[in-house]
């Protein structure tokens, strides 16, 4: 599945200072019944976002028009729980291109990188600075520069660097995915498989 190339993203951000946001909150299991990758953004954070009668919950951040943007800023241990890639799809499909947190669950991080959603992991201190900046001004913009691996709070000029492995970075910047890579090395895989005892 092709995705947008990621180079520099400059955007306001949506703050969600909650820890252990798990994949069942991001996209509840009952919305996993599709056989196509469509419409998951509508059900992003479904049970936090809507009452049981489908009216929006006023106090949930995605229902607050003050907060907009392509960056979601979450608390520690974001994306824990299941392996459902649907969680990353839902965030991407809603319109986010980047999630910032001080800690990500492994599978979620992997899945995000595979679909072009950039997980940016920073220190708890810098995360607090971002939350403070957004609290002071909901329109505060962040800049995520993938080439330089730097995230900046534009209003204050504060910066932090983040890690990503070179291979994934190259993929993200070019909109490539792993399947393209694996197809190109099928011969090696054949040879390897021939030796397997299973």
């Amino acid at each position, binding site marked *: *599945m092709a995705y947008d190339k990621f180079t520099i993203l400059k955007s306001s951000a949506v703050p969600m*200072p*909650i*820890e*252990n946001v*798990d994949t*069942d*909150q991001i996209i*509840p*299991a*009952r919305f*996993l*019944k*599709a*056989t*196509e*990758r469509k419409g998951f953004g509508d059900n992003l954070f479904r*049970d936090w976002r809507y009452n*049981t009668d489908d009216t929006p919950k006023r106090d949930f951040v995605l229902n607050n028009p003050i907060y907009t943007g392509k960056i979601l800023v979450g*608390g*520690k*241990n974001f994306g*824990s*729980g*299941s*392996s*459902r*890639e*649907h969680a*990353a799809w839902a965030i991407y499909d809603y319109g986010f291109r980047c999630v910032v947190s001080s*800690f990500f*669950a*492994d*599978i979620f991080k*992997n*899945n995000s990188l*595979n*679909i072009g959603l950039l997980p940016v992991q920073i220190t708890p201190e810098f995360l607090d600075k971002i939350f403070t900046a957004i609290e002071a001004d909901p329109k505060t913009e962040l800049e995520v520069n993938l080439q330089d691996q730097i995230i900046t709070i534009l209003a204050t000029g504060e910066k932090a660097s983040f890690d990503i*492995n*070179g*291979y*994934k970075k190259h993929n993200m910047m070019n909109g490539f*995915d*792993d*399947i393209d*890579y*694996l*197809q190109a*090395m*099928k011969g*090696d*895989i054949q040879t*390897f*498989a021939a030796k*397997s*005892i*299973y």
Partner: protein
Amino acid sequence: MSQLPATLFDKVWDSHVVRKIDDGPDVFFIDRHFIHEVTSPVAFLGLEGRGLKVMFPEKTFATADHNTPTINQHLPVQDPLSANQLKALEVNSAKYGISHWGLGNPKNGIVHVVGPENGITLPGMTIVCGDSHTSTHGAFGAIAFGIGTSEVEMVLSSQCIMQPKPKKMRIKVNGQLGKGISPKDVILYIIAKLTAAGATGYFVEYAGEVFEQMSMEGRMTVCNMSIEMGARGGMIAPDETTFAYIKGREKAPKGEAWDKALAYWKTLKTDEGAAFDLEYEYNAADIEPMITYGTNPGMGIGITHHIPVSQEAGAGKASYEKSLNYMGFHEDEGMLGKKVDYVFIGSCTNGRIEDFRAFASIVKGRKKADHVTAWIVPGSHIVEQQIKEEGILDILTAAGFQLRQPGCSACLAMNDDKIPAGKYAVSTSNRNFEGRQGPGARTLLASPLVAAAAAVTGVVTDPRVLLAD
């Protein structure tokens, strides 16, 4: 490199690397791939979109479980969306030549139950599935973990995924478990110690007397929940218990192939002096029957204890309060005696025959509490058969319980088995997240013994007081 002492994990991982990429992941070969109806359809669409084939269809196995009803499985599936996914699995499997155990097939059941029970899961393998509890198969000394749908597409099209090698953790539990303490309590205890994120970035090896003495089914329960502390997976070195379990199962190697495999499997253990990035050690005598009180599996305590008072400030404290609010609990309250509305025994964590034997050991000669609704769901048709043949069904029926048909059921509530909002469920499954068992449902994770004690008394009860000597 063969001179250096290696861990079990190193031995299996390193022998499956097809290519190392500089500053990138390893190209990692997969021996067995399980698929189910929920996370595979989009992967097949992706294949079609790119015009790719399945490279080794004989290495992939399909079973329907997440979405399936647990009553009247002989009738057409009512929910059109579920029916659609089940159909897609059937059609895709047929089209690409993948073995498919659909609804009604005598081998059908939860993917992590049917793999081991049919001898598909073997020591030293790499095993993946689009489901995080794939870690279950680590009980056999395999490297097994959950993957996303993009990766399902990778395995289908190239039998490989791209994986950075995780760090290594060893968790030892030595000593003897007390009466009424089961494998589920051991893993809930470990997760409570490490927290829900404490093993993120690691692959865990469980070692020590407790695991050496544990049955294969118990080991599966433990490895199953490795993901609940953030670990990529967990594994236990194969031993005589493992070999005895596998021998004779339908898809296990036979004759000469068995001897050859066995000789290899015996080399699969951590060498003396091999290094781990992190090690923990616990004492079996400290472990009680466990129960969770919050909304992540790390929020567990001994059943006789009180809910801890939050030691954190800021976001940590707010999350803790949110969690207790959702559960309708307070700091420093005891768990014993709390009213229970639902009891669920099943799932890939505790849906095997030993779990139903444990449940029956307490239920026998007692009656289901009137106000409790109990869902008793075997992990597979084979388990269902065993329940009947061993007379467990008679015990259950005499006590006022009904047996349902196999599937994931209330573990993730994708089918009709949903716990209503605000109700309390003692559940033998693996996740107590908000809404996991239905919108607003309140989950208390526990062992089959604790579930049985709740089912007959109607409240949270220490199973040790009900166990015969």
